[in-house]
């Protein structure tokens, strides 16, 4: 590997390919259908709960549509943070997969779990430094891409 130009010889490459095929044959695969159904149920439930908060906010708390949508997001974030704190959310995510983390709940979990984990290394170098280990990349690239899209949107004639 230290010789950058050296490629595996044809015999070695055949051996590697054959082993990769063998590994593929003997490794169990994720159950795709089951995963999709569970993600649909879990994600759907989270969104339904969000909708309940939107309706409640408008009916009983005298909120506008925009405020009630923000209220729903806040409630989902709060509930996820609480469930993460009491050690339940990882079990829901294990069942629901992307259904549990694609709604805003995933973001809350990605912030609270490192906060809990790295608190032991101190408030500054532990919690402070590692709070964004999971959410950080999403923020960096999410914000960067939105800036690029914003610039394109601004110079477009329509």
């Amino acid at each position, binding site marked *: 590997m230290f010789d950058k130009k050296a490629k595996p010889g044809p015999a070695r490459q055949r*051996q*590697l390919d054959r*082993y*990769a095929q*063998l*590994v593929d044959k*003997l*490794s*169990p*695969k*994720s159950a795709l259908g089951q*995963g999709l159904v569970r993600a649909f149920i879990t994600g759907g439930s989270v969104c339904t709960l969000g909708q309940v908060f939107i309706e409640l906010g408008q009916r009983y708390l005298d909120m506008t549509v925009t405020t009630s949508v923000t209220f729903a997001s806040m409630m989902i974030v709060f509930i996820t943070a609480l469930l*993460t*704190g009491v*050690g339940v*959310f*990882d079990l*829901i*995510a*294990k069942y629901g*997969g992307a259904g*549990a*983390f694609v709604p805003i709940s*995933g973001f809350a*979990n*990605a912030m*609270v*779990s*490192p906060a*809990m*984990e*790295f608190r*032991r290394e101190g408030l500054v170098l532990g919690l402070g430094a590692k709070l964004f*280990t*999971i959410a950080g990349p999403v923020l960096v690239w999410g914000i960067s891409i939105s800036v690029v899209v914003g610039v394109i949107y601004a110079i477009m004639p329509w």
Partner: protein
Amino acid sequence: MQLNRIGQHTILLPNRPRIVSSAAIAGKKEGAGPLRDDYDQIIDDDLFGEETWEKAESRFQYAAADLAIRKSGLTHEQIDAALGGDLLDQIMAASLAVRELHTPFIGLYGACSTMAESLCLASMLTDGGYLRHAVCTASSHFCTAERQYRFPLEYGCQRPPTAQWTVTGAGSAVVSSDERLPAICRSTHVTLGRIVDMAIKDANNMGAAMAPAAADTLSRHLSDTGRTAADYDLIITGDLGRVGHDLLLTLMQERGMPLDQTRYIDCGLEVFSPSQDTHAGGSGCGCSAVTLCGHIFHRFQKGELRRVLFMATGALLSPTSSQQGDTIPGIAHAIALEADS
């Protein structure tokens, strides 16, 4: 000078050092597994009364070493060296554990092969007369391994079916050249592992990364010693898990040295039952350590085993090497153990 070597890479131990005592301390999930009766202690508290997972793991390792030494009838002062390691950065669990033992210390990193690595080295050093009594230790902890290699514990994600579950626990064994101490078994041959890398990159399929190394060490051991797999009551791999176990059977078949399925076990498959939802089985230094120091040594004591080959496997990846796109180097160290006759 006489060389104690046979074949290409196998080391002969003419004085057959004795394994005089052992201890296995396991966590709660392991304590609910099939080997529950073989553990000296089952610790229900993941933190073992400490403030952090790392200190808890260190305490597992200290408790195992201390118990093994006490069971041998020796004192801490009589131990000439501790040889041990774990999976953490700078082998923190081992260093902090041995800090309490006050013995000379050889820190080892062999990933999950550490228990075999420490037994191989301790056997060679006691056989050569450099140490009288040595204590070998290895530990792992689910929570320390998760946060170091993967995600925070409470982060919600799904593990693929090939992933393995890091065993929480520590095993320890005292190796001695003292003929007066009764032996559980004696070590006779050591075959040190070579790094074998078959370009596996998936850190969630470590069995696949390690199986070729196990096949390499096993076939070298058998050809060096002129033995066949049938000469062993049991061939024991460390933590290949379901995928690696099946791969090793296939690879040995292809090499013309087929293994008898009834006399080949993998600690990763022994330590948990399929109903414990660990996916492909157990892993970690503690996996082979608690299985050997608990289950296997008990079977020696009951007279059920006469000769075994213990071969713990390690995936020598680091989070950094994985992120830099490198493939996973595998290793397997083998030690032949025989009942005292």
